Protein backbone atom coordinates (compact mmCIF):
# COMPACT_ATOMS: atom_id res chain seq x y z
CA UNK A 1 0.00 0.00 0.00
CA UNK A 2 1.66 3.23 -1.20
CA UNK A 3 -0.10 5.51 1.25
CA UNK A 4 1.33 8.69 2.75
CA UNK A 5 1.17 9.26 6.49
CA UNK A 6 1.93 12.70 7.84
CA UNK A 7 2.02 14.15 11.30
CA UNK A 8 3.54 17.56 11.96
CA UNK A 9 3.85 19.59 15.11
CA UNK A 10 5.77 22.83 15.01
CA UNK A 11 5.71 26.25 16.61
CA UNK A 12 7.62 28.18 13.93
CA UNK A 13 7.25 29.84 11.48
CA UNK A 14 3.59 29.41 12.47
CA UNK A 15 2.08 26.99 14.98
CA UNK A 16 1.10 23.78 13.21
CA UNK A 17 -0.51 20.61 14.52
CA UNK A 18 -1.84 18.26 11.85
CA UNK A 19 -2.16 14.53 11.29
CA UNK A 20 -3.51 12.96 8.11
CA UNK A 21 -3.15 10.08 5.70
CA UNK A 22 -3.56 9.99 1.93
CA UNK A 23 -4.15 6.72 0.10
CA UNK A 24 -2.46 5.72 -3.15
CA UNK A 25 -4.30 7.19 -6.12
CA UNK A 26 -6.26 9.53 -3.89
CA UNK A 27 -6.25 13.30 -4.47
CA UNK A 28 -6.52 15.15 -1.20
CA UNK A 29 -7.05 18.88 -1.13
CA UNK A 30 -5.42 20.79 1.71
CA UNK A 31 -7.62 23.85 1.92
CA UNK A 32 -7.43 26.93 4.07
CA UNK A 33 -6.94 30.68 4.08
CA UNK A 34 -3.42 31.98 3.44
CA UNK A 35 -1.30 31.67 6.55
CA UNK A 36 -3.11 28.52 7.64
CA UNK A 37 0.09 26.48 7.30
CA UNK A 38 -0.83 24.47 4.18
CA UNK A 39 2.38 25.20 2.30
CA UNK A 40 4.50 24.55 5.38
CA UNK A 41 2.96 21.07 5.68
CA UNK A 42 3.82 20.48 2.02
CA UNK A 43 7.40 21.63 2.60
CA UNK A 44 7.72 19.24 5.53
CA UNK A 45 6.63 16.33 3.30
CA UNK A 46 9.14 17.33 0.61
CA UNK A 47 11.88 17.80 3.21
CA UNK A 48 12.29 21.52 2.53
CA UNK A 49 11.28 22.44 6.08
CA UNK A 50 12.20 20.66 9.28
CA UNK A 51 9.47 20.77 11.94
CA UNK A 52 10.19 20.44 15.66
CA UNK A 53 8.40 17.11 15.74
CA UNK A 54 6.98 15.20 12.85
CA UNK A 55 6.69 11.93 11.01
CA UNK A 56 6.40 11.40 7.28
CA UNK A 57 6.14 7.87 5.94
CA UNK A 58 5.57 6.94 2.32
CA UNK A 59 4.78 3.43 1.14
CA UNK A 60 6.20 2.05 4.37
CA UNK A 61 9.48 3.99 4.11
CA UNK A 62 10.16 6.60 6.77
CA UNK A 63 11.19 9.95 5.29
CA UNK A 64 11.09 11.86 8.53
CA UNK A 65 10.85 10.80 12.14
CA UNK A 66 12.13 13.39 14.60
CA UNK A 67 11.80 10.99 17.52
CA UNK A 68 14.24 8.55 15.88
CA UNK A 69 16.40 11.20 14.24
CA UNK A 70 15.49 10.11 10.70
CA UNK A 71 15.49 12.94 8.14
CA UNK A 72 16.00 11.83 4.54
CA UNK A 73 17.53 14.64 2.42
CA UNK A 74 15.20 16.26 -0.10
CA UNK A 75 16.97 14.86 -3.16
CA UNK A 76 16.57 11.28 -1.91
CA UNK A 77 12.82 11.59 -1.34
CA UNK A 78 10.91 10.48 -4.42
CA UNK A 79 8.62 13.46 -4.41
CA UNK A 80 7.16 15.40 -7.33
CA UNK A 81 6.41 19.02 -6.57
CA UNK A 82 4.58 21.57 -8.70
CA UNK A 83 5.47 24.92 -7.18
CA UNK A 84 3.16 27.91 -7.06
CA UNK A 85 5.59 29.84 -9.29
CA UNK A 86 6.33 26.58 -11.22
CA UNK A 87 10.05 27.19 -10.49
CA UNK A 88 11.12 25.98 -13.92
CA UNK A 89 14.85 26.23 -14.65
CA UNK A 90 14.95 29.37 -16.83
CA UNK A 91 18.13 28.43 -18.70
CA UNK A 92 16.74 25.07 -19.86
CA UNK A 93 14.28 24.12 -22.58
CA UNK A 94 10.98 22.48 -21.66
CA UNK A 95 12.52 19.12 -22.56
CA UNK A 96 15.66 19.76 -20.50
CA UNK A 97 13.51 20.81 -17.54
CA UNK A 98 11.70 17.47 -17.61
CA UNK A 99 14.95 15.55 -18.13
CA UNK A 100 16.49 17.40 -15.16
CA UNK A 101 14.18 15.36 -12.94
CA UNK A 102 15.83 12.15 -14.11
CA UNK A 103 13.77 11.19 -17.15
CA UNK A 104 15.39 9.85 -20.32
CA UNK A 105 14.78 11.91 -23.46
CA UNK A 106 12.21 9.39 -24.70
CA UNK A 107 10.40 9.45 -21.37
CA UNK A 108 10.55 13.27 -21.19
CA UNK A 109 9.00 13.54 -24.67
CA UNK A 110 6.28 11.09 -23.65
CA UNK A 111 5.49 13.15 -20.52
CA UNK A 112 5.37 16.41 -22.47
CA UNK A 113 2.97 14.76 -24.92
CA UNK A 114 0.90 13.58 -21.98
CA UNK A 115 0.38 17.20 -20.89
CA UNK A 116 -0.21 18.15 -24.54
CA UNK A 117 3.01 20.11 -25.05
CA UNK A 118 4.43 18.10 -27.95
CA UNK A 119 6.00 20.49 -30.43
CA UNK A 120 7.11 22.92 -27.70
CA UNK A 121 10.00 20.81 -26.37
CA UNK A 122 12.73 23.26 -27.35
CA UNK A 123 11.06 26.36 -25.92
CA UNK A 124 12.49 27.97 -22.82
CA UNK A 125 10.07 28.78 -19.99
CA UNK A 126 10.13 32.51 -20.83
CA UNK A 127 8.69 31.68 -24.27
CA UNK A 128 5.77 29.68 -22.82
CA UNK A 129 2.43 30.95 -21.52
CA UNK A 130 1.54 30.58 -17.84
CA UNK A 131 -0.64 27.57 -18.53
CA UNK A 132 2.07 25.93 -20.63
CA UNK A 133 4.67 26.55 -17.92
CA UNK A 134 2.36 24.93 -15.41
CA UNK A 135 2.09 21.86 -17.61
CA UNK A 136 5.89 21.63 -17.96
CA UNK A 137 6.03 21.77 -14.16
CA UNK A 138 3.53 18.90 -13.94
CA UNK A 139 5.52 16.86 -16.48
CA UNK A 140 8.74 17.56 -14.58
CA UNK A 141 7.13 16.49 -11.29
CA UNK A 142 5.97 13.22 -12.90
CA UNK A 143 9.43 12.64 -14.43
CA UNK A 144 10.74 12.15 -10.91
CA UNK A 145 8.58 8.99 -10.79
CA UNK A 146 7.30 10.28 -7.49
CA UNK A 147 5.90 8.20 -4.66
CA UNK A 148 4.04 11.36 -3.60
CA UNK A 149 2.85 14.21 -5.81
CA UNK A 150 2.51 17.66 -4.24
CA UNK A 151 0.71 20.53 -5.99
CA UNK A 152 1.25 23.86 -4.23
CA UNK A 153 -1.48 26.24 -5.42
CA UNK A 154 -0.63 25.32 -9.00
CA UNK A 155 -3.48 27.29 -10.53
CA UNK A 156 -3.09 30.60 -8.69
CA UNK A 157 -0.85 32.24 -11.32
CA UNK A 158 -3.10 31.68 -14.36
CA UNK A 159 -6.31 33.40 -15.42
CA UNK A 160 -9.76 31.95 -14.82
CA UNK A 161 -10.27 30.49 -18.31
CA UNK A 162 -6.86 28.77 -18.36
CA UNK A 163 -7.57 27.46 -14.89
CA UNK A 164 -10.73 25.68 -16.07
CA UNK A 165 -8.68 24.06 -18.86
CA UNK A 166 -6.01 22.98 -16.43
CA UNK A 167 -8.64 21.44 -14.12
CA UNK A 168 -9.74 19.29 -17.04
CA UNK A 169 -6.11 18.44 -17.69
CA UNK A 170 -5.49 17.30 -14.12
CA UNK A 171 -8.77 15.36 -14.07
CA UNK A 172 -7.69 13.62 -17.30
CA UNK A 173 -4.26 12.83 -15.79
CA UNK A 174 -5.81 11.16 -12.76
CA UNK A 175 -5.79 7.74 -14.39
CA UNK A 176 -1.97 8.03 -14.65
CA UNK A 177 -1.56 8.99 -11.02
CA UNK A 178 -1.35 5.94 -8.81
CA UNK A 179 0.46 7.71 -5.95
CA UNK A 180 -0.99 9.87 -3.16
CA UNK A 181 -1.59 13.40 -4.46
CA UNK A 182 -1.94 16.53 -2.31
CA UNK A 183 -3.34 19.73 -3.75
CA UNK A 184 -2.85 22.86 -1.69
CA UNK A 185 -5.37 25.59 -2.43
CA UNK A 186 -7.34 28.37 -0.80
CA UNK A 187 -10.14 27.90 -3.33
CA UNK A 188 -12.97 25.63 -2.13
CA UNK A 189 -14.37 25.47 -5.64
CA UNK A 190 -11.05 24.16 -6.98
CA UNK A 191 -10.97 21.54 -4.22
CA UNK A 192 -14.56 20.53 -5.01
CA UNK A 193 -13.80 20.04 -8.69
CA UNK A 194 -10.59 18.07 -8.29
CA UNK A 195 -10.36 16.36 -4.93
CA UNK A 196 -11.68 13.11 -3.51
CA UNK A 197 -11.18 14.24 0.04
CA UNK A 198 -10.63 17.56 1.75
CA UNK A 199 -8.63 18.55 4.81
CA UNK A 200 -9.51 22.06 5.89
CA UNK A 201 -6.79 23.86 7.85
CA UNK A 202 -7.11 27.03 9.83
CA UNK A 203 -4.35 28.61 11.93
CA UNK A 204 -2.21 25.51 11.72
CA UNK A 205 -4.83 23.00 12.84
CA UNK A 206 -7.19 20.65 11.01
CA UNK A 207 -10.66 22.18 11.12
CA UNK A 208 -12.43 19.37 9.33
CA UNK A 209 -11.45 16.38 7.18
CA UNK A 210 -13.57 14.10 5.07
CA UNK A 211 -15.13 13.45 1.67
CA UNK A 212 -15.69 16.56 -0.45
CA UNK A 213 -19.49 16.66 -0.35
CA UNK A 214 -19.59 16.31 3.44
CA UNK A 215 -16.93 18.88 4.24
CA UNK A 216 -18.33 21.54 1.93
CA UNK A 217 -21.62 21.78 3.82
CA UNK A 218 -20.05 22.01 7.26
CA UNK A 219 -20.95 25.39 8.81
CA UNK A 220 -17.63 25.65 10.68
CA UNK A 221 -15.73 25.14 7.41
CA UNK A 222 -17.88 27.68 5.65
CA UNK A 223 -17.29 30.26 8.34
CA UNK A 224 -13.55 29.70 8.07
CA UNK A 225 -13.48 29.79 4.29
CA UNK A 226 -15.88 32.57 3.42
CA UNK A 227 -19.55 32.14 2.71
CA UNK A 228 -19.53 33.22 -0.91
CA UNK A 229 -18.34 29.76 -1.92
CA UNK A 230 -20.90 27.92 0.22
CA UNK A 231 -23.08 25.44 -1.57
CA UNK A 232 -24.26 21.86 -1.65
CA UNK A 233 -24.69 19.15 -4.23
CA UNK A 234 -27.87 17.24 -5.02
CA UNK A 235 -28.00 13.95 -6.86
CA UNK A 236 -30.52 13.57 -9.71
CA UNK A 237 -30.89 12.02 -13.12
CA UNK A 238 -31.92 13.42 -16.48
CA UNK A 239 -35.65 12.77 -16.91
CA UNK A 240 -36.50 14.67 -20.08
CA UNK A 241 -35.11 17.13 -22.63
CA UNK A 242 -37.93 19.62 -23.10
CA UNK A 243 -38.78 21.65 -26.20
CA UNK A 244 -38.12 25.10 -24.75
CA UNK A 245 -34.46 24.30 -24.05
CA UNK A 246 -34.83 23.16 -20.47
CA UNK A 247 -33.81 19.82 -19.05
CA UNK A 248 -36.00 18.17 -16.45
CA UNK A 249 -34.02 16.43 -13.74
CA UNK A 250 -35.67 14.06 -11.35
CA UNK A 251 -34.34 14.31 -7.78
CA UNK A 252 -35.46 12.32 -4.77
CA UNK A 253 -38.00 14.98 -3.84
CA UNK A 254 -39.36 15.88 -7.26
CA UNK A 255 -38.49 17.56 -10.53
CA UNK A 256 -35.85 20.28 -11.06
CA UNK A 257 -35.77 22.26 -14.30
CA UNK A 258 -32.41 23.60 -15.48
CA UNK A 259 -31.02 25.04 -18.72
CA UNK A 260 -30.21 22.29 -21.20
CA UNK A 261 -27.82 19.62 -19.88
CA UNK A 262 -26.51 17.31 -22.57
CA UNK A 263 -26.91 13.61 -21.84
CA UNK A 264 -29.10 10.57 -22.36
CA UNK A 265 -32.33 10.18 -20.44
CA UNK A 266 -31.50 8.42 -17.19
CA UNK A 267 -27.92 9.80 -16.92
CA UNK A 268 -27.15 10.43 -13.25
CA UNK A 269 -25.78 13.91 -12.47
CA UNK A 270 -24.77 15.98 -9.48
CA UNK A 271 -25.95 19.56 -9.32
CA UNK A 272 -24.11 22.11 -7.22
CA UNK A 273 -26.44 24.71 -5.77
CA UNK A 274 -24.87 27.82 -4.26
CA UNK A 275 -26.30 28.73 -0.86
CA UNK A 276 -26.89 32.36 -1.85
CA UNK A 277 -29.05 31.28 -4.83
CA UNK A 278 -31.64 29.53 -2.64
CA UNK A 279 -34.84 31.28 -1.49
CA UNK A 280 -36.91 29.81 1.35
CA UNK A 281 -40.69 29.90 1.52
CA UNK A 282 -43.01 28.43 4.20
CA UNK A 283 -45.83 27.77 1.69
CA UNK A 284 -45.59 26.32 -1.78
CA UNK A 285 -44.94 29.51 -3.72
CA UNK A 286 -47.38 30.66 -6.41
CA UNK A 287 -47.07 33.43 -8.99
CA UNK A 288 -43.27 33.22 -8.96
CA UNK A 289 -40.96 33.10 -11.96
CA UNK A 290 -38.66 30.51 -10.32
CA UNK A 291 -39.48 27.05 -11.64
CA UNK A 292 -38.11 24.90 -8.86
CA UNK A 293 -39.60 24.49 -5.39
CA UNK A 294 -38.19 21.59 -3.39
CA UNK A 295 -40.00 20.50 -0.22
CA UNK A 296 -37.52 20.20 2.63
CA UNK A 297 -37.05 20.05 6.40
CA UNK A 298 -34.90 22.50 8.36
CA UNK A 299 -32.01 20.64 9.97
CA UNK A 300 -30.04 23.44 11.60
CA UNK A 301 -29.65 27.21 11.51
CA UNK A 302 -26.23 28.77 12.04
CA UNK A 303 -26.29 32.54 12.49
CA UNK A 304 -23.33 34.33 10.95
CA UNK A 305 -21.39 37.22 12.43
CA UNK A 306 -23.20 39.70 10.17
CA UNK A 307 -26.89 39.88 9.25
CA UNK A 308 -26.86 36.48 7.53
CA UNK A 309 -27.58 32.93 8.59
CA UNK A 310 -26.82 29.56 7.05
CA UNK A 311 -29.79 27.20 6.98
CA UNK A 312 -29.06 23.52 6.51
CA UNK A 313 -32.00 21.69 4.95
CA UNK A 314 -32.74 18.01 4.43
CA UNK A 315 -34.10 17.24 0.97
CA UNK A 316 -34.93 13.57 1.15
CA UNK A 317 -31.61 11.94 2.07
CA UNK A 318 -29.55 14.89 0.87
CA UNK A 319 -28.49 18.25 2.22
CA UNK A 320 -29.16 21.69 0.77
CA UNK A 321 -27.67 24.93 2.09
CA UNK A 322 -29.51 28.25 1.99
CA UNK A 323 -27.95 31.53 2.96
CA UNK A 324 -30.66 34.00 4.01
CA UNK A 325 -30.89 36.94 6.40
CA UNK A 326 -31.45 36.49 10.12
CA UNK A 327 -34.45 38.80 9.67
CA UNK A 328 -36.03 36.26 7.30
CA UNK A 329 -35.29 33.42 9.72
CA UNK A 330 -37.32 35.32 12.33
CA UNK A 331 -40.07 36.42 9.93
CA UNK A 332 -40.65 32.87 8.71
CA UNK A 333 -40.21 31.50 12.24
CA UNK A 334 -37.86 28.82 10.94
CA UNK A 335 -36.83 26.20 13.52
CA UNK A 336 -35.09 22.84 13.16
CA UNK A 337 -37.68 20.22 12.26
CA UNK A 338 -40.03 22.66 10.49
CA UNK A 339 -40.91 22.10 6.84
CA UNK A 340 -40.49 24.69 4.10
CA UNK A 341 -39.79 24.99 0.38
CA UNK A 342 -36.44 25.77 -1.17
CA UNK A 343 -36.96 27.87 -4.27
CA UNK A 344 -34.29 27.84 -6.97
CA UNK A 345 -34.05 29.90 -10.14
CA UNK A 346 -33.20 27.62 -13.07
CA UNK A 347 -30.89 30.16 -14.60
CA UNK A 348 -28.91 30.49 -11.36
CA UNK A 349 -27.26 27.09 -11.87
CA UNK A 350 -24.18 27.50 -14.04
CA UNK A 351 -23.56 24.72 -16.53
CA UNK A 352 -20.18 23.98 -14.95
CA UNK A 353 -22.02 23.22 -11.71
CA UNK A 354 -23.72 20.17 -13.22
CA UNK A 355 -21.41 17.20 -13.46
CA UNK A 356 -21.92 13.55 -14.37
CA UNK A 357 -21.89 11.38 -11.31
Amino acid at each position, binding site marked *: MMSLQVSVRSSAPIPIDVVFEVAAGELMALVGPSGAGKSTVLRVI*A*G*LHGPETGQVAVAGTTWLDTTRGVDM*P*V*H*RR*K*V*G*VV*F*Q*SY*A*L*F*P*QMSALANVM*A*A*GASEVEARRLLALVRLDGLETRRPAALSGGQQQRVAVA*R*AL*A*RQPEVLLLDEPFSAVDRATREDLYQEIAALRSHLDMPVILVTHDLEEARQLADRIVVMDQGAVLRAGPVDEVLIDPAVLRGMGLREAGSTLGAHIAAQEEDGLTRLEAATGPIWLPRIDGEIGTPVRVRIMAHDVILSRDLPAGLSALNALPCVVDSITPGEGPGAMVRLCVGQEVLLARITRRSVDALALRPGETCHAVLKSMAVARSNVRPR
Partner: protein
Amino acid sequence: MDWDAFWLSIQLALWTVALLLPVSVFLGRMLAYRRFAGKSAIEALVMLPLVLPPTVLGFYLLVALGAESPLGRGWEALFGGPLVFSFEGLVVASVLFNLPFAIQPAQRGFEAVPSDIRDAAACCGMSPLTALRKVELPLAWPGVLTGMVLTFAHTLGEFGIVLLVGGSIPGETRTVAISIYDKVQAFDMDGAARMSATLLVISMATIALTFWLSARAGRRLS
Protein backbone atom coordinates in the same frame (compact mmCIF):
# COMPACT_ATOMS: atom_id res chain seq x y z
CA MET B 1 58.05 49.52 -21.59
CA ASP B 2 58.74 47.13 -18.73
CA TRP B 3 57.22 43.95 -20.22
CA ASP B 4 58.67 41.90 -17.38
CA ALA B 5 56.53 43.88 -14.96
CA PHE B 6 53.43 43.38 -17.14
CA TRP B 7 54.04 39.68 -17.40
CA LEU B 8 54.58 39.42 -13.64
CA SER B 9 51.39 41.35 -12.93
CA ILE B 10 49.40 39.11 -15.24
CA GLN B 11 50.85 36.00 -13.61
CA LEU B 12 49.99 37.36 -10.18
CA ALA B 13 46.46 38.20 -11.35
CA LEU B 14 45.93 34.76 -12.88
CA TRP B 15 47.15 32.99 -9.73
CA THR B 16 44.92 35.15 -7.58
CA VAL B 17 41.90 34.42 -9.80
CA ALA B 18 42.65 30.68 -9.87
CA LEU B 19 42.92 30.49 -6.09
CA LEU B 20 39.91 32.75 -5.41
CA LEU B 21 37.51 31.08 -7.87
CA PRO B 22 36.67 28.04 -5.72
CA VAL B 23 36.75 30.20 -2.58
CA SER B 24 34.30 32.69 -4.05
CA VAL B 25 31.92 29.94 -5.25
CA PHE B 26 31.77 28.13 -1.93
CA LEU B 27 31.98 31.12 0.41
CA GLY B 28 29.69 33.25 -1.78
CA ARG B 29 27.14 30.44 -1.95
CA MET B 30 27.33 29.82 1.79
CA LEU B 31 26.89 33.51 2.63
CA ALA B 32 23.99 33.76 0.17
CA TYR B 33 21.99 30.71 1.30
CA ARG B 34 22.96 29.71 4.80
CA ARG B 35 22.09 31.29 8.08
CA PHE B 36 24.54 30.57 10.85
CA ALA B 37 26.07 32.12 13.95
CA GLY B 38 28.91 34.47 13.10
CA LYS B 39 27.75 35.07 9.53
CA SER B 40 27.80 38.85 9.98
CA ALA B 41 31.30 38.63 11.44
CA ILE B 42 32.52 36.70 8.40
CA GLU B 43 30.85 39.17 6.04
CA ALA B 44 32.47 42.08 7.87
CA LEU B 45 35.87 40.37 7.81
CA VAL B 46 35.57 39.75 4.06
CA MET B 47 34.72 43.43 3.56
CA LEU B 48 37.61 44.69 5.71
CA PRO B 49 40.17 45.02 2.88
CA LEU B 50 37.81 47.48 1.17
CA VAL B 51 38.07 50.05 3.96
CA LEU B 52 41.52 49.29 5.31
CA PRO B 53 44.37 51.31 3.71
CA PRO B 54 46.45 48.85 1.65
CA THR B 55 49.57 49.88 3.49
CA VAL B 56 48.01 48.90 6.82
CA LEU B 57 47.00 45.48 5.52
CA GLY B 58 50.42 45.22 3.89
CA PHE B 59 52.14 46.02 7.17
CA TYR B 60 50.22 43.34 9.08
CA LEU B 61 50.90 40.81 6.33
CA LEU B 62 54.58 41.71 6.41
CA VAL B 63 54.56 40.97 10.11
CA ALA B 64 52.41 37.85 9.81
CA LEU B 65 54.35 36.35 6.91
CA GLY B 66 57.79 37.62 7.89
CA ALA B 67 60.79 35.52 8.94
CA GLU B 68 60.00 36.21 12.62
CA SER B 69 56.46 34.79 12.40
CA PRO B 70 55.52 31.10 12.81
CA LEU B 71 54.03 31.19 9.28
CA GLY B 72 57.17 32.67 7.77
CA ARG B 73 59.42 30.22 9.67
CA GLY B 74 57.25 27.28 8.63
CA TRP B 75 57.39 28.37 4.99
CA GLU B 76 61.13 28.84 5.10
CA ALA B 77 61.62 25.38 6.66
CA LEU B 78 59.48 23.82 3.96
CA PHE B 79 60.65 25.67 0.85
CA GLY B 80 64.03 27.04 1.88
CA GLY B 81 63.22 30.69 1.14
CA PRO B 82 61.37 33.56 2.77
CA LEU B 83 57.68 34.17 2.05
CA VAL B 84 57.93 37.95 2.13
CA PHE B 85 59.69 39.70 -0.77
CA SER B 86 58.83 36.69 -2.96
CA PHE B 87 56.24 36.04 -5.66
CA GLU B 88 54.53 33.44 -3.44
CA GLY B 89 54.17 36.01 -0.66
CA LEU B 90 52.61 38.41 -3.17
CA VAL B 91 50.07 35.75 -4.16
CA VAL B 92 49.06 35.21 -0.52
CA ALA B 93 48.68 38.96 0.04
CA SER B 94 46.80 39.40 -3.21
CA VAL B 95 44.33 36.60 -2.42
CA LEU B 96 43.54 38.12 0.98
CA PHE B 97 43.28 41.64 -0.37
CA ASN B 98 40.91 40.58 -3.17
CA LEU B 99 38.47 38.63 -0.98
CA PRO B 100 35.76 41.34 -1.10
CA PHE B 101 36.13 41.84 -4.86
CA ALA B 102 35.73 38.12 -5.55
CA ILE B 103 33.19 37.08 -2.93
CA GLN B 104 30.74 40.00 -2.92
CA PRO B 105 29.68 39.70 -6.61
CA ALA B 106 29.57 35.90 -6.33
CA GLN B 107 27.35 36.19 -3.26
CA ARG B 108 25.01 38.59 -5.11
CA GLY B 109 24.98 36.18 -8.04
CA PHE B 110 23.90 33.26 -5.86
CA GLU B 111 21.36 35.43 -4.04
CA ALA B 112 19.73 36.20 -7.38
CA VAL B 113 18.78 32.53 -7.87
CA PRO B 114 15.19 32.28 -6.58
CA SER B 115 14.85 29.99 -3.58
CA ASP B 116 12.01 27.98 -5.12
CA ILE B 117 14.22 27.18 -8.11
CA ARG B 118 16.82 25.79 -5.71
CA ASP B 119 14.06 23.88 -3.91
CA ALA B 120 12.88 22.55 -7.27
CA ALA B 121 16.40 21.31 -8.06
CA ALA B 122 16.46 19.30 -4.82
CA CYS B 123 12.93 18.02 -5.45
CA CYS B 124 14.09 16.88 -8.91
CA GLY B 125 16.51 14.58 -7.11
CA MET B 126 19.67 16.64 -7.61
CA SER B 127 22.29 16.33 -4.87
CA PRO B 128 23.65 19.68 -3.62
CA LEU B 129 26.72 19.31 -5.87
CA THR B 130 24.63 18.44 -8.94
CA ALA B 131 22.28 21.34 -8.22
CA LEU B 132 25.30 23.67 -7.98
CA ARG B 133 26.58 22.46 -11.36
CA LYS B 134 23.31 22.21 -13.30
CA VAL B 135 21.13 24.94 -11.79
CA GLU B 136 22.91 27.37 -9.48
CA LEU B 137 26.12 28.06 -11.42
CA PRO B 138 24.36 28.40 -14.80
CA LEU B 139 22.23 31.14 -13.19
CA ALA B 140 24.81 32.69 -10.86
CA TRP B 141 27.87 32.63 -13.12
CA PRO B 142 27.67 36.28 -14.21
CA GLY B 143 28.15 37.25 -10.55
CA VAL B 144 31.03 34.81 -10.10
CA LEU B 145 32.66 35.97 -13.33
CA THR B 146 32.21 39.63 -12.39
CA GLY B 147 34.09 38.89 -9.17
CA MET B 148 36.90 37.23 -11.10
CA VAL B 149 37.17 40.10 -13.61
CA LEU B 150 37.27 42.65 -10.80
CA THR B 151 39.89 40.59 -8.98
CA PHE B 152 42.01 40.35 -12.11
CA ALA B 153 41.86 44.09 -12.83
CA HIS B 154 42.36 45.04 -9.23
CA THR B 155 45.45 42.84 -8.88
CA LEU B 156 47.04 44.47 -11.96
CA GLY B 157 46.76 47.89 -10.35
CA GLU B 158 47.53 47.13 -6.69
CA PHE B 159 50.41 49.14 -5.29
CA GLY B 160 50.60 49.60 -1.52
CA ILE B 161 50.35 45.99 -0.45
CA VAL B 162 52.73 44.82 -3.16
CA LEU B 163 55.31 47.37 -2.18
CA LEU B 164 55.17 46.47 1.50
CA VAL B 165 55.04 42.67 1.16
CA GLY B 166 57.07 42.30 -2.03
CA GLY B 167 59.25 45.35 -2.40
CA SER B 168 60.43 45.96 -5.95
CA ILE B 169 62.53 43.02 -7.11
CA PRO B 170 62.59 42.88 -10.94
CA GLY B 171 61.04 39.66 -12.25
CA GLU B 172 60.00 38.58 -8.75
CA THR B 173 57.86 41.29 -7.17
CA ARG B 174 58.11 44.39 -9.41
CA THR B 175 54.57 44.59 -10.82
CA VAL B 176 53.21 47.18 -13.30
CA ALA B 177 52.11 49.64 -10.64
CA ILE B 178 55.50 49.46 -8.91
CA SER B 179 57.27 49.79 -12.23
CA ILE B 180 55.29 52.93 -13.09
CA TYR B 181 56.16 54.41 -9.70
CA ASP B 182 59.84 53.58 -10.21
CA LYS B 183 59.79 55.20 -13.67
CA VAL B 184 58.26 58.41 -12.30
CA GLN B 185 60.88 58.42 -9.54
CA ALA B 186 63.54 58.13 -12.26
CA PHE B 187 61.91 60.97 -14.30
CA ASP B 188 61.10 58.54 -17.14
CA MET B 189 57.74 60.23 -17.79
CA ASP B 190 57.32 58.76 -21.29
CA GLY B 191 57.74 55.21 -20.04
CA ALA B 192 55.36 55.86 -17.14
CA ALA B 193 52.82 57.36 -19.57
CA ARG B 194 52.93 54.36 -21.92
CA MET B 195 52.50 51.87 -19.10
CA SER B 196 49.74 53.94 -17.48
CA ALA B 197 47.87 54.19 -20.77
CA THR B 198 48.08 50.41 -21.23
CA LEU B 199 46.76 49.85 -17.72
CA LEU B 200 43.97 52.39 -18.36
CA VAL B 201 42.82 50.51 -21.47
CA ILE B 202 42.83 47.20 -19.61
CA SER B 203 40.81 48.71 -16.73
CA MET B 204 38.24 50.24 -19.06
CA ALA B 205 37.83 46.95 -20.91
CA THR B 206 37.31 45.24 -17.57
CA ILE B 207 34.58 47.65 -16.52
CA ALA B 208 32.86 47.29 -19.90
CA LEU B 209 32.96 43.52 -19.51
CA THR B 210 31.43 43.58 -16.02
CA PHE B 211 28.65 45.95 -17.13
CA TRP B 212 27.85 43.74 -20.09
CA LEU B 213 27.82 40.64 -17.88
CA SER B 214 25.49 42.10 -15.27
CA ALA B 215 23.10 43.36 -17.97
CA ARG B 216 23.07 39.87 -19.44
CA ALA B 217 22.40 38.34 -16.05
CA GLY B 218 19.53 40.75 -15.46
CA ARG B 219 17.93 39.81 -18.78
CA ARG B 220 18.28 36.15 -18.07
CA LEU B 221 16.55 36.10 -14.72
CA SER B 222 13.73 38.47 -15.63
